[in-house]
């Protein structure tokens, strides 16, 4: 299994203030760069950064190409992934996307992973006047044409429902040929299967359980063999998923350092989606809402502690279920990762920076995970997962530029 880090650039407002401190946005970006630099030195395989717009506190990452370019100059080996580029043309014209992806690939000496997506939130779709019911069509048209722009000299032009463009040579071209490995954001199960049919990596954002992952991965590879009609000039057969992670010497320390951040991640993700109240641009204070709601729940939980299972093993499972599989000691994380490894997940991408987590604790977490957990999985990836993947691709003759 390979590993990566996933960045939203979450930035809660100070509880007692109405807005961020003047240096907060600069700080969070530079902290990310330090974390990515460390991750590169320690052998992490990927960093993926999102593109989101207008989602205050949830994500301040609206120009990932700039941050990834900065990261490229502080790293040597780690792959630099868009997780993802919004492909509807009202968000990003596909020619501009092709230009930026190719330029980042040149700046980084060929380390781009090209993640694509439709966009999801009402705030973003509404902000760019993108009709929700048509965004999948827009995504497909823009992605297909963008990949043609990355490879064709000249690009032949297009006259379609959402993109019209005459003949042009879109330059520069990427260093990776024919183009960087291409992924699609897959929050829905259906999209994982669509990814297989289009020869794309599935960048899972569904926080799948090991059982869900097992089911999807088996079917994904069947579809790559049976129904693949690549959207680009090369396929990137790969299945990854995202999870929040905090690794510390003890489970208790990890929970103390990391649980609230993971909970804020979920809270802020759901904010603005029915039945939750809509967002109020410039006026929301998600962090204060979150903390106040958490205080009420903690009081209820304290009262409910008597209801936890009495058996120690069952109680551990109960508590683990409350916090996910990757907030804990190296041992705890290792045991949960093994379940995904058994399901043949290609890559686990960790959300390390979220909520109010502290930079030095994130750095320590990355380091502890890399030293005590990661190496054995990367070793087995070469010995077991790689040959297994080759077996899955038996009979598949498309050009394969996956970096898994």
């Amino acid at each position: 299994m390979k590993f990566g880090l996933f960045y939203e650039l979450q930035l809660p407002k100070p509880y007692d203030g109405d807005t961020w401190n003047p240096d907060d946005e600069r700080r969070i970006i530079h902290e990310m760069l330090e974390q990515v630099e460390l991750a590169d030195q320690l052998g992490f395989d990927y960093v993926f950064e999102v593109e989101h717009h207008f989602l205050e506190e949830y994500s301040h990452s609206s120009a990932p190409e700039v941050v990834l370019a900065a990261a490229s100059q502080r790293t040597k080996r780690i792959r630099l992934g868009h997780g993802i580029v919004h492909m509807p043309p009202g968000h990003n014209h596909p020619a501009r996307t092709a230009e930026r992806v190719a330029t980042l690939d040149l700046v980084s000496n060929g380390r781009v992973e090209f993640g694509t997506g439709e966009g999801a939130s009402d705030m973003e779709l509404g902000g760019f006047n993108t009709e929700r019911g048509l965004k999948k069509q827009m995504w497909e048209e823009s992605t297909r044409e963008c990949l043609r722009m990355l490879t064709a000299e000249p690009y032949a032009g297009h006259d379609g429902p959402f993109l019209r463009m005459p003949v042009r040579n879109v330059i520069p071209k990427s260093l990776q040929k024919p183009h960087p490995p291409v992924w699609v954001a897959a929050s829905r199960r259906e999209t994982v299967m669509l990814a297989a049919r289009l020869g794309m990596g599935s960048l899972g954002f569904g926080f799948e359980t090991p059982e869900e992952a097992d089911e999807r991965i088996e079917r994904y590879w069947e579809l790559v063999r049976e129904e693949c009609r690549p959207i680009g000039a090369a396929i990137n057969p790969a299945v990854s998923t995202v999870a929040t992670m905090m690794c510390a010497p003890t489970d208790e320390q990890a929970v103390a350092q990391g649980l609230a951040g993971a909970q804020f991640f979920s809270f802020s993700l759901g904010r603005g989606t029915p039945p939750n109240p809509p967002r109020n641009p410039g006026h929301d204070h998600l962090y204060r809402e979150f903390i106040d709601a958490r205080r009420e729940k903690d009081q209820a939980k304290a009262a409910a502690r008597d209801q936890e299972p009495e058996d120690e093993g069952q109680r551990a499972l109960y508590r683990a279920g409350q916090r996910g599989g990757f907030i804990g000691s190296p041992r705890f994380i290792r045991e949960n990762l093994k379940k995904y490894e058994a399901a043949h997940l290609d890559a686990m991408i960790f959300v390390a920076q979220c909520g109010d987590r502290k930079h030095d604790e994130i750095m320590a977490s990355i380091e502890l995970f890399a030293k005590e957990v990661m190496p054995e999985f990367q070793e087995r990836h070469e010995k077991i997962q790689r040959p297994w993947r080759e077996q899955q691709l038996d009979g598949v003759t498309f050009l394969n530029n996956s970096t898994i």
Partner: protein
Amino acid sequence: MARPSQVQDEELRGLITAAREAYLHDRNLESVEKSVAAFRGLLQRQPDFLSTGPFAGNNRRVFPQLGVAMKQAGGGQPDFVLERRQFSNPEAITWFEYVSDCLVAAKL
């Protein structure tokens, strides 16, 4: 993920199999129509599937908002209206996958 062969109800299996054949040949509108017909059949057989079935309350299994509207018809059963006549292949595949999963989850 579900396969048409896992659907036991003969009529519904025929519809979802036809949906697959259609998207494989880029007959995307036809594919969506077949998938929607299969889903309509599911709800006729299990009227409570959406409210109390295995996917009820799961926000990762919601009805796809892809050119098909679900409207309440007379008698309380929802009906489905195609909002447009043009669908992309990814949209047809998404409908096929969603309905297939629902049929198998409903044990039909």
